């Protein structure tokens, strides 16, 4: 079913992403980006201003029950509404759109944060996503799950380690043109392939780096969006879907829940030919192998290995932000993808700008080996 009206993203702000923002609490990181988007649309939280806040964060990453309570003050929620989406930030966009389409709000602030550097390791957190009797005792965590997924995908697709290395170099190339990106320095094939193997076939260089940061956006109803900025970016399609929990009950060589999420979003956005529909594609590649795997599930190609060989990522303008391989914290992977699409569609992407971009797709993933997938389709007015 098509959306009853369009919801516009009027402003986005991102901190620079960094492996260790030790000098700021999350409150400071979030306030930076909230202030920026609030000023960009010229609104405060008074009557007629931003009506409600939606936050994205996670209690375990923050080591804090009710992690959103830490940012109540800086998201303007004193005596106002705030609701936390505890999943990848693209899910925050999904929920934010519903609060506007429902008629409940016209202007909503979305603000996400995550400091992966705070905990001893990310694996110790994601290990706790597994059930206490059948999977935790085996030492599973999201990295191990991703390695099983990578092995399955490489076996089916024939994507090679060299192709993964190319993707890492490509990420660095674009990240160098993205002022907020974390991993901007050049890296050689030798350096990539000599990085320690973490869990075959995932080397340290194929995994998104530890990252801290925050992102904020202002979402508005179609009518209000036009008042708040000259070139709002419209959300025209949304979809998400869950796969099964136990890894043995999924075909890890495919991303079924992403296929379903994409179908839902494309139906809404009236997109029949995803292979040619998008000028900008942003994929949450937490691991290098996920870029071709998810490209297949998004319908950008049928054969990920051939797609890589034939320059698919460049032809379809995938991850000009640098992607997650360049560094975004787990909770913000999809939200950073949406943010990049907005910047591209507003013509604000500087040295990585896709010329005459009109239609974009962003993807985000939550859970072990992308159990929950989210797809957002965005368009500008041309």
């Amino acid at each position: 079913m098509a959306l009853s009206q369009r919801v516009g993203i009027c402003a986005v702000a991102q901190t620079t992403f960094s492996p260790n923002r030790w000098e700021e609490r999350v409150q400071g990181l979030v306030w930076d980006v909230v202030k920026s988007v609030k000023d960009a649309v010229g609104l405060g939280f008074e009557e007629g201003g931003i009506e409600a806040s939606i936050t994205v964060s996670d209690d375990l990453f923050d080591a804090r029950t009710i992690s959103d309570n830490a940012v109540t003050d800086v998201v303007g929620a004193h005596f106002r509404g705030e609701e936390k989406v505890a999943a990848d930030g693209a899910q925050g966009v999904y929920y934010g759109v519903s609060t506007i389409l429902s008629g409940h709000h016209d202007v909503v602030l979305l603000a996400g944060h995550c400091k992966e550097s705070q905990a001893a390791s990310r694996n110790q957190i994601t290990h706790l996503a597994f059930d206490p009797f059948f999977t935790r005792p085996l030492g599973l965590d999201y990295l191990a799950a991703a390695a099983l997924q990578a092995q399955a995908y490489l076996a089916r697709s024939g994507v090679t380690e060299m192709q993964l290395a190319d993707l890492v170099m490509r990420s660095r190339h674009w990240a160098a043109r993205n002022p907020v990106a974390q991993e901007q320095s050049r890296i050689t094939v030798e350096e990539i392939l000599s990085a320690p193997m973490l869990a075959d076939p995932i080397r340290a260089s194929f995994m998104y780096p530890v990252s801290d940061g925050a992102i904020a956006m202002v979402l508005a109803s179609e009518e209000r969006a036009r008042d708040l900025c000259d070139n709002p970016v419209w959300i025209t399609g949304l979809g998400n879907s869950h796969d099964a929990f136990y890894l043995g009950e999924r075909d890890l060589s495919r991303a079924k829940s992403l296929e379903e999420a994409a179908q839902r979003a494309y139906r809404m956005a009236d997109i029949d030919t995803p292979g040619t529909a998008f000028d900008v594609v942003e994929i949450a590649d937490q691991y290098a192998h996920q870029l071709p795997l998810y490209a297949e599930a998004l319908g950008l190609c049928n054969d990920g290995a051939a797609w890589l060989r034939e320059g698919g990522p460049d032809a379809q303008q995938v991850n000009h932000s640098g992607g997650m391989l360049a560094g975004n914290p787990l909770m913000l992977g999809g939200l950073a993808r949406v943010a990049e699409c907005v910047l591209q569609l507003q013509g604000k992407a500087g040295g990585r700008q896709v010329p005459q971009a009109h239609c974009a797709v962003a993807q985000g993933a939550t859970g072990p080996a992308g159990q929950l997938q989210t797809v957002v389709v965005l368009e500008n007015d041309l």
Partner: protein
Amino acid sequence: MTTDAFTIAGKMALPYQYFAGATSSRCIVALRDEKKILASRCERSDRTVFPPRQVCDLTFEDLSDNWVEVSDRGTITGFTIIRYAEPYQPMAPPYVLALIRLDGSDATLTHIVHSEDIETVAIGQRVNAVFAETPVNNILAIRHFCCVPTDSDSP
């Protein structure tokens, strides 16, 4: 950069007690005491699943009394070699973590595979369960799966 900021080492630590529930307990006790692998069978989705479950996650059929004993032998359908270290891991890396489809069913579980040479582990490798010698109240009641020669033991 000069800043008044600094960092403080701390921890998040609390006691927890998890309950397996009646269905999973039955399975764990069977692994531990009888060295039997009990899986759940859902006729409606035509699946045999391990870990077992009280209801089928796809059809909501009640599976709490729909047990099938499955083979303790199987085939590796996917694997990774864990080479990074974390305190919660069951053994010191490197070790093989694999998806194992048990013979005669579509039940595919995740477990550790022991091999003399872990670098040679591959998809299609035949394995069998080695049960723990002392009682363990979770999936490690199967200590690990062990590689067996393919030709001597076809499914």
